[in-house]
């Protein structure tokens, strides 16, 4: 019997020890960094174990950012980088669960302020009317739809847009840039197909359009058309493709490969202040000027100049990116910025503009920095570094 107890005791002791060691494995407590002025949406891991984090950036010009014990986890709330940030609040539409939510970061966690049922549309683009009013656009059941969101109480008003009818061979609206100016919303659009049987050889509708919408009653006044390019600005929930400059002139850029068009060039268009027509004196063939690059995103940095996230030509949108400087006002290509090749994601909100300077995050093969570009001195300097092996830097945001 002694032997029996010996064996049993020994075995149980081993089990208990293991259970205790592992069971008591303490969860670390994190440091909090509330009140940072900037943030980044970062992604780590390979599929299916990818995880998204919102990490605070104390300064754009110095220091390091790591997600080791740092960053608010987005899992279970926000699924990708298609978030809209304003005044430190993040807005995200989750089409799978049919929700539109408002979130903020507090004590290192992403807090849900409110989620409302939202099944009306699959969002592509948005424009702010004022601090309280957000208009979002997207395709829903093969209709072009919008929703006006009052972000304070998260109340919503929805409607349809009377855009040009979808022609034969296509069955969806592809919604491009959206820009509010003087009670009008300018909305880029085109036609697409969801028949993926011959993917990636998809049918291409050789036309780019801009709807001029009266904000008061959300009626479409007219659609402007051009056939030199397609895909009038990508889904802007990922990155901007339009801006209004100091002269109240509206500029926007097209990205044909986004709608499977490998042939057409990227064009930049202008709609002058007070006008609702494409400026007939202006059409900037960005691809021709940049060595056949395409333009998935564009940020205005002041004085008529803009930074373009530029992609090497081809049907694939998962290609090398670079950053170029253009004079949008004069329709000229200035130069390619001397930055490392951007190996990052296809859709990145990579630029923050502050005090006339541009801060550009670059997902390089080597080390990942936010670079400061000062247009007055034409100087590039390294700023904050993302360390520890971030897979994707998806967004950088100015919170206040």
């Amino acid at each position, binding site marked *: 019997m002694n032997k029996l107890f010996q064996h049993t005791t020994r075995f149980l002791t081993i089990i208990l020890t293991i259970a205790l060691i592992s069971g008591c494995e303490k969860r670390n407590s994190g440091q909090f960094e509330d009140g940072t002025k900037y943030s980044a949406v970062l992604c780590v891991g390979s599929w299916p174990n990818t995880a998204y984090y919102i990490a605070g950036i104390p300064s754009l010009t110095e220091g390091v950012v790591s997600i080791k014990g740092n960053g608010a986890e987005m*899992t279970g709330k926000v699924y990708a980088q298609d978030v809209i940030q304003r005044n430190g609040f993040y807005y995200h539409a989750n089409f799978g669960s049919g929700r539109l939510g408002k979130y903020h970061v507090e*004590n290192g966690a992403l807090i849900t302020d409110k989620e409302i049922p939202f099944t009306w549309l699959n969002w592509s683009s948005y424009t702010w009317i004022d601090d309280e009013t957000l208009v979002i656009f997207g395709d829903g059941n093969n209709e072009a739809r919008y929703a006006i969101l009052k972000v304070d109480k998260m109340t919503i008003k929805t409607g349809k847009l009377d855009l040009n009818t979808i022609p034969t061979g296509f069955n969806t609206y592809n919604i491009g840039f959206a820009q509010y100016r003087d009670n009008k919303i300018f909305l880029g659009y085109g036609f697409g197909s969801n028949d993926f049987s011959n993917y990636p050889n998809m049918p291409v509708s050789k036309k780019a359009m801009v709807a001029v919408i009266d904000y008061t009653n959300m009626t479409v006044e007219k659609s402007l058309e051009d056939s030199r390019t397609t895909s009038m600005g990508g889904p802007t929930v990922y990155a901007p493709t339009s801006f209004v400059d100091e002269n109240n002139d509206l500029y926007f850029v097209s990205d044909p490969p986004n709608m499977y068009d490998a042939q057409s060039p990227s064009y930049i268009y202008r709609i002058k202040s007070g006008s609702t027509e494409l400026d007939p004196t202006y059409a900037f063939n960005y691809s021709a000027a940049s060595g056949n690059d395409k333009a998935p995103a564009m940020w205005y940095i002041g004085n008529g100049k803009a930074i373009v996230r530029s992609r090497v030509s081809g049907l694939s949108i998962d290609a090398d990116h670079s950053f170029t400087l253009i004079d949008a006002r004069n329709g000229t290509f200035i130069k390619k910025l001397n930055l490392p090749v951007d190996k990052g994601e296809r859709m990145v909100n990579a630029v923050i503009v502050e005090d006339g300077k541009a801060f550009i995050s670059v997902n390089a093969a080597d080390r990942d920095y936010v670079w400061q570009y000062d247009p007055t001195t034409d100087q590039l300097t390294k700023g904050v570094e993302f360390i520890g092996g971030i897979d*994707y830097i998806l967004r950088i945001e100015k919170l206040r």
Partner: protein
Amino acid sequence: MLYRRTLLLLLLSTLFFSTFAQNNATISGQVKDGTETIIGATVTIKGTKNGVITDISGRYEIKGITPGTYTVIVSYIGYLKSSQSVTLSAGQQKTLNFSLSKDPQQLDNVSIDGKTKNQEVKESGFAVNAIETKKFANTTADLNQILNRSTGVRIREQGGLGSDFKFSINGLSGKQVKFFIDGIPIEVMGSAMSLNNIPVNLAERLEVYKGVVPVTLGADAMGGAVNVITNQKVSNYLDLSHSYGSFSTNRSALTGQFVDQKTGLIFKGSGFFNSSANNYKMKDVEILQGGVRDGDQIVDLNGAEFVSTDIRRFHDNYMSASGQAEIGVVNKKWADVLFIGGGYNESTQDLQTGFEQKIVYGKVRKTSSSANGTIRYKKNDIFTEGLNLSAFASRTKDESKTTDTLLRQYYWDGTWTVKSSPEMGSLKQINNIARPRTYAMANMSYLINNEHSLNLNYTFDHLKNKNYNQYFASRDSMPGLMKKQIVGLAYQQNLLDQRLSNTVFAKYYRLGLERPKLISGSYSLLDTTFSNWGYGVASRYKVTQNFGLKASYEHAYRLQEAEEMFGDGLNLQPNPDLKPERSDNINIGAYYSFRLDRHSFFIEASGFYRNAKDFIYPVPDLRSQLLKNENKSDVLITGFESELRYAYSELLSLNLNLTYQNAVNKTKTGSTESMVPEYTYNNKIPNQPFLFGNADFGIGKDNLLGKDTRLQFNWFTQYINWFYLTWENAGNPNGKSDIPTQFIHNASLSYSMEKGKYNLSLECRNLTDNLSYDNFKLQKPSRSFSVKFRYFIQ
């Protein structure tokens, strides 16, 4: 389906006499169960203190017996006592052989120390869990629930009866683990057959091979394999059961066999029926309050707000039914076994949620049906003595359909709003999958002598994959074709008086994949062929009769499937560059069993190592919402597991096991090109339990409430340590999502009458009504009760 039971032979005892001139007499002999020797059986002479235990070859010898007349008694746990009367003269050396038969009454007994079939499997060089399902026969468990209690196995179910599950053995899971019934891939029976619906009564034993898989299971099972062994005996029997429980759950099972004495024909039949509403209560989920409603539809969301509540599931009905019949002969000159059979099974499953609890479905439904025809043949000593052949062939028609056509967003109370896309995805679908399959296997073993044997195994698997969305097309214009051939050769040696056993094996995988592809307007055949060599070794050394050491290694592959490479024509895009997954697997372990009086112990501990590369995962594309399989990640898994089994006579049994596994990500670069290793490199893989264990306690007594009855009580607790859903070191711990530590308790009480002919049992699962999760944070069933009646004759 081949549901059979092992032979319960009642063999007559034999007596042999030989006489020698000595003063004291000696008795010696062998104790067997049919043809198998029994180790550790107690042989005593009634009325004396003389007694011994049989050795490794089942032999015993009692010396120094005074001449006279005695009764020799042989007993062994799980068997009927056997006794023989013997008269010994001076100096006589008497041989007295015994053949024990199993005690049908001891249904709940744990056979521990004898060389049962289980023990034999456990004592092979392979890392294997061998589970007797007999002791669960009166419970309502399906095979998954039994397997989930065993060492190193984690089955993560999405919900209630019939829900999708992910089976993992030592950290490898999904298609890396293959399932068999009597050595035949379970898919051959049709897609409605699954470990989550096969009732316990249809199986006799379960074998779980971890990482290293014998060639007889001809498969590219890189993570391991589960083999369900059905009843194999050659006499009449009938096992009929029905259970009813919470959530309107009904489960019936039937298996039986009839031997026609006149013609010698054997008829076998088995079947089951499962149905459940799975309407268990969901805790703290959100529903909408307010808004303008028309019946279940919320026509205007204005003023509608999410509020939290507890509510029952409303769209999770499940039904599955299966019937399988065989007719054949045994013990003919030209065939030891020849059976032909056929079967049909079908299932209907409502889907209640997506991968996340917030995503509620209200009308999505999956149905499947399949029919099969089979033939099997076995002949021992064919052509020459020691050369055994077995062969199997089948043809399966297998069809399934997933319907998702409504533009609706459902909420937990069953209300819905109009959505601009169907419930599951971006396209309406009535997705049809048809997979006609021809499968054949042949196994030849040759026993050169008692020390050396060879085994050659060949499997041929031909599968056509037709996939189309009935909503847009009426057929698949580009069906995919998979032709898989696996040849395995094993050489086994049993040296040092059977103490050392070595198995060396090699496997050759050949895979042919075809799919016509539309290239610039015309179809051309994309034809790809792969071949790979796998190999391995499994060894066992018995230090003493009860103490053994084991080690095994395999360089294993999991071949890509047609759909993974060529896409499904719907949401899954082709990737012609896909490679097979591969892994180097090592197991080392030791076992020790001993008995003290009526206490029996079995202890086993082992360590494992899996170096897996090129995992195939479907990666979503953000722009098109399409998936594409890629060889994405490398994982290194190390861990250990241990098991203790204890029994006191036929009264008490206790089974404890614990598994720890450390799966570390070895994917150096992420999606982007980078010289800096990915942050997650060398981090623990998230969303995977790493420490879990089970405790199974049983107490039962015979003849407590009358003659030939047994009352049995079982308690089963499952423990899963908490784990993070995402990378453990990434992000602020304050906001990290995790699955908390879980203790789930279950209990059952069963009462058997007339030696197990009539059985009645009561069962409660999740006794304390804890929240339990398996997959992400999808809630599993709340507390449930069931009652089961079983009728068993043989």
